């Protein structure tokens, strides 16, 4: 399987995602340039990495959404291709309408970088197939605007359709207010679209995909995706 990592101006986790995918997960990986209007054939999953695309001026992800490559990313997603937005990438996906809701400023009003725990809520997806429901992953967050918000109706749909893949939790898996780093509704850390091929998450699995970094829980997401393709 082959990954493509989009480079927006201001992306700064692009190299990290590339390294995690190519070196840690050992997958064929290539960069995609924001000005490109074609996605090379053979790409199975597109990663929108973290960072501050276009300086996050105006609103996080609001300008990146108009990048030439995004038309292609939307087309790619609509035709069933896997797309994963991490942190700023998640923000871009909500701005582009590929995922519902939005990311507000953290309830603390401060940027926060720390390890958090994720409770896996659904393993019946390409992104989580190697996990068990209730598994706890340690993965860091690093954002100023990661407070997931959507209207009640949308939240109800996401919950009832099992489209919340990850919730912030305590080390023992308990989903409570203390373990919510940013004020997200229902501790939501990552969601998937209706067709279940587009994932957006605020935490950074690419940062903890390598034992040298002290934890490699994040690589399970990339390995799950790869497994999907081995089966096919």
């Amino acid at each position, binding site marked *: 399987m082959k990954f493509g990592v989009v480079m927006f*101006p*201001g992306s*700064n986790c692009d190299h990290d995602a590339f390294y995690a995918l190519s070196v840690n997960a050992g997958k064929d990986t290539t960069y995609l340039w924001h000005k490109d209007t074609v996605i090379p054939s053979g790409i199975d999953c597109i990663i929108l990495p973290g960072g501050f695309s276009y300086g996050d001026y105006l609103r996080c992800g609001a300008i990146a959404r108009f990048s030439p490559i995004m038309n292609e990313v939307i087309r790619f997603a609509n035709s069933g291709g896997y797309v994963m937005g991490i942190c700023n990438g998640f923000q871009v996906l909500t701005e582009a309408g590929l995922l519902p809701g939005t990311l507000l400023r953290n309830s603390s009003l*401060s940027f926060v*970088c720390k390890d958090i725990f994720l409770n896996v809520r659904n393993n019946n997806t390409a992104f989580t197939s190697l996990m068990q429901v209730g598994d706890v992953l340690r993965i860091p967050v690093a954002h100023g605007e990661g407070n997931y918000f959507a209207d009640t109706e949308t939240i109800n749909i996401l919950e009832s359709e099992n489209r919340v893949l990850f919730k912030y939790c305590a080390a023992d898996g308990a989903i409570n207010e203390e373990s919510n780093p940013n004020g997200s509704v229902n501790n939501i850390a990552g969601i998937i679209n209706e067709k279940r091929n587009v994932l957006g998450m605020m935490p950074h699995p690419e940062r903890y995909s390598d034992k040298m970094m002290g934890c490699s829980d994040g690589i399970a997401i990339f390995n799950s995706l790869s497994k999907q393709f081995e089966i096919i």
Partner: protein
Amino acid sequence: MELYSELEVTKDVALEVGLSENEYEEILKILGRTPTYTEIGIYGVMWSEHCSYKNSIKLLKTLPRSGARLLVEAGQENAGLVDIGDGYAIAFKIESHNHPSAIEPFQGAATGVGGILRDIFTMGARPIAALNSLRFGTLDKARNRFLFRGVVEGIGHYGNCFGVPTVAGEVYFEDCYSDNPLINAMAVGIVHKDKTATAAALGVGNPVMIVGSSTGRDGIHGASLLASREFDEKTDEMRPTVQVGDPFGEKLLLEATLELIEAGVVAGIQDMGAAGISCSTSEMCAKAKTGMEVDLDKVPLRENDMSAYEIMLSESQERMLVVIHKGMEEKAKAICNKWDVPLTTIGEVTKENIINITRHGRLVASLEPSTLALGGGAPQYDRASKQPAYLEETKNFDLSLIEKIPNDEAFTKLLRSPDIASKRWVYEQYDSQVRTNTMSIKGDAAVLRIKEIPGKAIAVTTDCNSRYVYLNPYRGAMIAVAEAARNIVCVGAEPVAITNCLNFGNPYDEEVYWQFRQAVRGMGNACRALGTPVTGGNVSFHNESQHRAVFPTPTIGMLGIIDDSNKIMSAGFKSPGDIIYLIGENRGGLEASEFLKEICGIVAGDAPLFEMDDELELHRVISMLIREEIISSAHDVSEGGLAICLAEKAILSNDKLGADIDLGSEPTTELLFGESQSRVVVSLPSTKENEFKKIQEKIKIPVSRIGVVIADSFKISGCIDSTVEWLISEYESAIPNLMKGNK
């Protein structure tokens, strides 16, 4: 072409731009004529304390500035360059942004980070880590909380967006920094030895280009008038001299710059920080012994009606002056277009040693670059110095007079002291992991892997206990270097080089200059003994207000190398049952201690005793214990003494591990909280104790077994008895409590 001056220059004009009467006379002599208005502006800024180092350069030259690993000599390029083997080098430097941050904390600190990052990537190195060393007045004052909050947000804003992990630093609170906080930013980058760039205007006929942002009126007089003077009631009016940072612009500039250097189109490059185009053109020409023709009409401006004077002095951020090899202009343009970074030719390199500046078709400046540049024609002064009067009093202070309180009460107060308490409130606002190299921020220094060289890592730290330096500038500065090295050693690295940021008061004050002279001497001696030469840095004088100077604060930024990244060490306890040893001598004494300041409200005594031979032996021992995989944790004893060191080892353990410590019956306050130097507390599995004891016989400094690691509880000889949970709660809540309700 005849020279044009928009204003007639007189002695008074020279004084207004910050020059002295003598300096103006000197300029008249150099030129053999009256300077134009633009020229006097350029001299004003280039001969300012900030750019010329006129009152420090002679002493700085006494520091050890060479070593086998140094690839450039201190001051030769924008940052130091240290060979780490396998074809790679680390560029690193620390710099102050005190004055701007004092009047506009967010942008002042943000642009401080931006400036030091540019110093790194202008050498062709990709920034891989940022650090900072911060000092504020005490947090009971609203103004200090405002400055603290603004500075931390500014540092986070710039570094997080740019994409460099902020991995280490220090924050101290002391009254003397109330009006004049210290904001020292350090950056570290990696470069292949064959891919470095130089800050020289090489190649006659080569085009000179500005890459990056347009030039505006921000920052004019920032270096010459704001940063080179003390604070007074008018300083607030200088807020417009503080630049405004655009980290997104800098990120694009980084990528474009590295790609330009990689593509081989760059003949020379220097970032534009203090003194903007004036500084970059003159220093690059002085270094290459060339000249330049520069047409200011070509400089992209934010406001069209800017004068030559304003353009030359603007400190607009995110700009580079780049000399491109002739014939490679198109290639350079293509790279900049790719990154949407503007690139504009503003002139060319000439053979004659003259910089000619034109504006609206008129020649507004014609100057010999070497007369402007640091180390060339810029003034170099010997300043008079005399021992400060206060030292008599502080040295002779009778410590037997202090009122002590019960040790457990003192322990709690120290744990809550903002100097000691957790800085989580600060560091969680910084992205410490981007670029996925950060292996540890839980030791005495941060450890980063080097992806380019599998198995290799570096350690970085900043250090200075300015209270020690205030009480004994010579010994205090030695201790600053030694403690930095101790921290590097405690994570398993070999100290290799330093950068320094020397923050002092007014150099024209003889007592301040004595502090400076002694501190430089102490630093030099320590660096020589430790084998860590000075690769460069920055001097910030005039840190004072209302006749009060800050404590002399020579901040040390140190780099260490780890050859085997499997053998890095952290500070926290690892397993119950591990044996705890103190390595190094307890010399007793509460002089200069955090205890004395926090409990008694006194800054007095001499700096702690310090013996370099003991320090070197300590380093040898700790390095060996890590290399031989005998110990499982190491943490040096610093502010708050042995009791606080042990508490920190408990707090930093992953599983709420505490300790049962026996320091004899009724340990003294001096033993618990004294800050004797050259001490490290280690813990080791009991299975390693025999091996340790064999080594112990050959250790030339005292070693004592002081206790054992236990679960959940923390006890010292019956006088301190608490849970680790309580320690954590006190330690973690102190700064958030002080900052509460001040959003």
